[in-house]
């Protein structure tokens, strides 16, 4: 299982990436993350909602009401221009982070 602390800083990247190709609503985003994790990470609903709302307040997402596949009205979120640029930044940052962490994960802790 992936701990909440370990993944906290990367939820933004995951949400932006899911919305990169098509708009979605909160539950669908949460379900996508859970499915992709293969059961190794169960995201709390408030954690996802917090991330989505923060991204919306920063102007990276905007929202609109629409009917979902189940026929119910849901609030959809879609990526904005700045959101797309932020996703690129987060991806580059993740590459650097991963390279650094990998360095230690491989047991090569020498300077």
């Amino acid at each position, binding site marked *: 299982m992936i701990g909440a602390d370990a993944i906290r800083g990367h939820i933004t990247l995951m949400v932006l990436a899911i919305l990169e190709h098509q708009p979605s*609503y909160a*539950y669908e985003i949460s*379900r996508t993350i859970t499915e992709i994790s293969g059961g190794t990470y169960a995201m709390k609903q408030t954690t996802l*909602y917090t991330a989505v*709302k923060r991204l919306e307040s920063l102007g990276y997402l905007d929202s609109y009401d629409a009917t979902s596949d189940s026929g*119910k009205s849901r*609030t959809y979120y879609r990526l904005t221009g700045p959101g797309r640029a932020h996703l690129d930044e987060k991806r580059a940052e993740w590459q650097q982070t991963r390279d650094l962490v990998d360095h230690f994960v491989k047991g090569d802790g020498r300077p």
Partner: protein
Amino acid sequence: MNVIDSYLDTLFAPYPNTAQMQRARRELRDMMEDKFHALVASGVGESQAVGTVIAEFGSLDEIAPVLGIDVEMGEAAGARQARETTAPPLDPHRALRYVDAVRASRFTGGVSTALFVLSPVPLLLLLAIFRDSTGMASGITVGIGIAGVLVIVLLGILLNMRRGEQLAEFEDIENGAFTTTARIEEVAHRLEAEHRRQSSRGWMIAISLWVLCAVPLIVLSLISEGNSPLPLIGVVLTITMVAIGLVVVSTTTWSDAVVETLIGEDPDEDDEDAVMHPVVRAITAVYWPVVVAVYLGWSFLGSAWSQSWLVWPIAGVLYAGLLALGRVLDENRAQSDRSASN
């Protein structure tokens, strides 16, 4: 979904009902509903699905800063803190000692109030017994009677002071100078539950006595002839019934007052009942001055002092009826408000 709605109601209850909060609640409920249906569709039982949804909900504290409710939460916490700094929390053991003290002093309080009501009885009895053929009493009789009145009033005052001494150490509690905690609410609710039946029975007996108290006076007046002392005996009986009602109320419903002091709620009244119907309130405001005017007008203009006292018992019974009507009107209004808001 009722359980989920109740769960959300509880979580959102401490926060102000702003548009922002309503939207957050709606979206979170949508998420929970979708998750619930997905679990049920995958073969999970409904109750287990509700449990899973609630377990995966998280915490509203996490959302607060991005929803802009951090300010409102801060204000709520600030207000709470301000109350706590001005008034210390009440120790539950002390609250229980206060409950015991009020319980112990309930007779003193009830009897002292009853004595004030009963104070005219010696005078009235002496006037009824020692009177000449014209219905007049001697100066000595009146003097002894008034002395009796004063003695009873003095007894009432002394008993009242005694009750004040018994509760002196709890003055801060009686003045509400404390902060109610969950433990105090528990003490109050347990006390209320333990005494609910006793309290409502007490009110029923007392209200019956107060409504019926005019009966002896009216009956004895109707059957009396000439200078018969029966109307005076009727007044004594009426006063006695009122006084017995007061003793019954103070000895059986003391717990209601304690609960109200501890948590600021009267178990017998909700907010809707506390506000009297405006029409009834207007009538009650002018009621007694009008009754006095009728009494004086009838007595002076009709020289009817021997009959005009009948105004009082009739006015008393009508007043009780008016208050009962006010309560019924108010309940109807509260019901129509509720159905209008649904």
